[in-house]
């Protein structure tokens, strides 16, 4: 049955993502399962893997910058009023 075939394919795809996530964890890639799933979809849409890795590193850098800005503005003393 086609629906059985589709569900089998989906189960195999899920299993593949699980194993790829475990491989990425062993290689210390700092990727959660959701991010990895999105990246796999992008690669299956024809995105170059090296360009995607570069984009992920840039996004992480920007996110960390945002975190630093948020922390420093939270720790900054309130302006004095006269």
């Amino acid at each position, binding site marked *: 049955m086609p629906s059985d075939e589709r569900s089998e394919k989906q189960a*195999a795809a899920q*299993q*593949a993502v699980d*194993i*790829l996530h*475990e*491989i*990425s*964890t*062993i*290689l*210390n*890639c*700092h*990727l*959660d399962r*959701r*991010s990895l799933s*999105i*990246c*796999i*979809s*992008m*690669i*299956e*849409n*024809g*995105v*170059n*893997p*090296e*360009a*995607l*890795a*570069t*984009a*992920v*590193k*840039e*996004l*992480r850098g*920007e*996110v*960390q910058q*945002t*975190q630093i800005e*948020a922390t420093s503005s939270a720790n900054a003393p309130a302006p004095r009023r006269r």
Partner: protein
Amino acid sequence: MAYLADLAALTDQLIAAIASSESVPKPRGTRLEARRESALRTLRYHTFGRTNQFEVEDHLNGYEERFRVIGRDVLADEFRSRLDALEPLRNKWSPEVLHFILELADQPAQKSDLAD
């Protein structure tokens, strides 16, 4: 056009996923727009070559060997068992996905912890 729309939608999801994993609020408005444009530029106008599946295999085998050389045999065994388990599930995109994972590897021989 549909490709670009799909790519932009997936890029938005990726930005949200990375922000949430780092506990930063989702970017909105111009900030989201700027991040999306920057990421899309990197994804579309790159000069990287195509993935060589044999180089990817060599690289993966090299990691297993390195784990064993530094005495992390348990990590090497776990790594090899995952690669073997992936074998029957491989499709035409598997070398590209593994290439992507290898690009993001961060000193696994020193930093990887099996407890993770």
